[in-house]
């Protein structure tokens, strides 16, 4: 049984169908990439899964239990935690306090929470920033704070919405390393990302959305060669490049 099962998810905003009958699974322990052009409905799908939107129709199961229509905090409590594409730091709180809010989900004890928070702080390379106000951080740090905060809740499924957008090449490489580390640590990931090199190098499976419809699902290799995906999103040049560099770029 998969950790997350999305079944026939449809989300409409008036006449606009942002997600149209989307179904897919996220296997336990895997990294699933969710890609697609701008406005494809990726963030909307995240919002539905994480309980921020009530889907028009369709059902979702997490860890064998139905989570459709659960409030957002309940979904998080069960272990599916998301980050926001447009970063949402708790501005007037310090970085440490931001992470502590996440850490408190697994217990009210302040000392334990602080230990967990320290770990996540280090893991996301925010050590020197603990006492800075989150609102004043540079963008890259804010992105990592999103991740650290979500991690502090000890999620079993971590959903990252473009956690690498706007980062420098080195920062991206760091993030890829962090994600690999998380996977090794047993966390399942659902990752929305526009940076193909990154997705292709970390994902076990890729799901492609276009105008709300799932147009492909498969391993990175299959996706890179999928005609529909190439026309809708990747473009022929990208596939050429991917093939030249040997399918997926690893660490270079």
């Amino acid at each position, binding site marked *: 049984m998969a950790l997350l099962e999305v079944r026939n998810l449809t989300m409409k905003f008036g006449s606009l169908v942002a997600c149209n009958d989307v179904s897919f699974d996220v296997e336990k322990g895997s990294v699933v990439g969710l890609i697609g052009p701008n406005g494809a409905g990726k963030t909307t799908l995240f919002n539905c899964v*994480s*309980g*921020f939107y009530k889907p028009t129709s369709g059902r979702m199961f997490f860890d064998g239990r139905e989570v459709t229509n659960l*409030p*957002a*905090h*309940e979904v*998080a*409590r069960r272990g599916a*935690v*998301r*980050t*926001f594409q447009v970063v*949402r*730091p*708790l*501005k*007037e*709180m310090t970085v440490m*306090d931001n992470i*502590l*809010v*996440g850490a*408190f*989900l697994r217990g*009210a004890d*302040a*000392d334990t*929470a*602080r230990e967990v928070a320290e770990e996540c702080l280090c893991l996301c390379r925010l050590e020197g920033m603990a006492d800075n106000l989150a609102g004043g951080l540079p963008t890259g740090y804010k992105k990592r704070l999103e991740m650290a*905060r*979500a991690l*502090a*809740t000890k999620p079993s499924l971590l959903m990252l919405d473009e956690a690498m957008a706007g980062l420098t090449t080195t920062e991206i490489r760091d993030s890829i390393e962090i994600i690999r580390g998380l996977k090794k640590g047993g966390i399942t990931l659902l990752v929305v990302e526009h940076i193909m090199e990154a997705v292709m190098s970390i994902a076990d499976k890729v799901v492609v959305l276009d105008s709300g419809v799932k147009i492909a699902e498969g391993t990175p290799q299959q996706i890179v060669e999928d005609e529909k995906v190439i026309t809708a999103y990747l473009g022929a040049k990208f596939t050429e490049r991917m093939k030249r560099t040997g399918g997926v770029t690893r660490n270079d």
Partner: protein
Amino acid sequence: MVTAMTLTGKRTKRDLFWLGLLALFAVIPLTPWFTRSTFAQHVMIQVLLYASMAQAWNILGGYCGQVSFGHSVFFGIGAYGTAMAVVKFGLIPWPGILAGAVIAAVVAVAISYPCFKLKGHYFAIATFAIVEIFNRLFMVWYWVGGALGLDYGFTQPGWKNFVWYQTKDCCFYGVLLLFILVFGIVRWIEKHRFGFYLRAVREGQDTAESLGVDSTRVKLSAMALSAFLAALCGAFFAQYNYRVDPPMVMSLDMSMKFVLITILGGLGTFYGPLLGAALLIPLQEYTRAYLGGIGGGVDLIIFGLLIIIVVVYQPKGIMGILDRVYVRFKRSREGGK
């Protein structure tokens, strides 16, 4: 006491400051300044009372970011609770105080559950509307004294009846206990999960939700606690004045005092409510006492100006100014080395 419970179990520097402050308050009644002048006593009592009220409001409005203009309703319910016990039922005030506070908390939750769905100005106006409704209803509710209110008859002075006629020392210690209770609770909250959740909800409800925080529950709990403590302050107010009537306790002006003292001192800060009250109450009492007739409204003119200035130039209030001074001081010291 409460203050010993810090995050790590150690007493931090700021806790020493807080304990020192309490010690200072505790010895004030022994000083000649206090014993010689009932006016000074009155001012000190008012300062601590209004500081406690503002702090009670601060839990919801400052830490949790839900600016309510309806707190005089809860304050009033507290005042009526004790007054009803004493005047109507001929009891000692204590059961009335407790009942008033509990009722206030229940009413607060019942009212705010639907109101929290409203956004921004719609919420603010709803809280205004609620104050007006309660005010008018209490005016015609004859069982609780209607527009005339409830007047205390003579009862034996002392802690049992919580009234004193000759001296104000005990009153001062009474309000000091209230102050310690309210500030102690906030101090405790600040360091525990609930405090983090309060601030998280203020800074971003969606973010908080995404981290597993049940924002509705947090807001309702903050509301209940805030209303409970506001009602305790109301009870003290009634005992202190030996009477209660609707305009005295349940009015927009009273509601705004909760808000403005906190804003003036520093929204969402621990010492802000105390600083705000320590500035405003003496200003009010002394202008009223010394300017008399010509001074009508002078205190409120100054207060109005202060509020404008604070909101426009220093949204963190007096605490913000102190913080800035402190930073500059630290920097100049470091620069000197």
